[in-house]
């Protein structure tokens, strides 16, 4: 499955795409509904979890990542690792600063 020539069709038909689209609509409704409740610090965790499920569905099915080779997967996931470093270390650095002048 690692190599494709361009005439090989992705195994996703109208029905499957419609189901994917419907799932994304439902998840959008869920995230709007869930936002009405206050989970404190977990608000952002819940919202990002639902958004990431939606993003994964878009990437896997609409963008055909499911049918892509390993190299494409690596290059699709690598930026997410860099993003993790960027956001993670920015936050860590900011909140562990020792005030010099106070």
């Amino acid at each position: 499955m690692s190599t494709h020539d361009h005439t090989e069709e992705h195994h996703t038909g109208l029905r499957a795409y419609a189901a994917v689209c419907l799932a994304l609509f439902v998840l959008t409704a869920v995230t709007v509904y869930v936002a009405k409740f206050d989970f404190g610090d977990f608000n952002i965790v819940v919202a990002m979890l639902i958004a990431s499920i939606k993003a994964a569905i878009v990437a896997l099915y609409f963008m055909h990542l499911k049918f892509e080779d390993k190299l494409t997967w690596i290059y699709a996931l690598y930026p997410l690792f860099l993003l993790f470093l960027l956001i993670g270390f920015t936050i860590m650095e900011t909140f562990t600063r020792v005030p010099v002048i106070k």
Partner: protein
Amino acid sequence: MSSTAEHAESHAHGHGLGDAVTHNAAKFGMWLFLGTEILLFGGLFAAYALFRAKYPDLFYESHKKLDVTLGAINTIVLIFSSFTMALAVSASQKRNRNWLMILLSVTFICGAAFGVNKYFEYSAKFHHHIFPDTNIFFALYFMMTGLHMLHVFVGMGIIFALIIMAKQGRFKEGNRYTPVEVGGLYWHLVDLIWIYLFPLLYLIG
């Protein structure tokens, strides 16, 4: 499974190795570019994370001024446009020119609808004297949605070019449909970024 070379050579339409390799290389190149796009927005996401952690109350109070209904409608519009774009790629693979043009047009119209919606949203904000310099939340709101809007416009330009190419018969039997698939990848990324912007800005602040 045979290698790409054997596969392409034995292929019924008689395409050379070049076509299959070009197709895969173009797709891979787009994935690489999308990686840089994620990091472009990543800088703004990092800024958002930082300032939200520093000023949670300001973010909470400010986000309530955004219209969740308009944001949700735009989310649905963009997801639907991704759906029609995915179908357009299918239609191009099946060499169905009429459906390809219809589906690309629907995708284009969805992009335009998103833009119109956003225009009303921005107007309402300006009307209430909310500007990018109002506070850090709105600075990020205008910057992130503005940069995203720019991507929607670029995507619409690509889709418009694809419609013209389809009209000229560029994706007929025997021709590559690579531009449709690669253009589709770009459009899906625009949807993907909005999937994160919507909850971050409209729902939780």
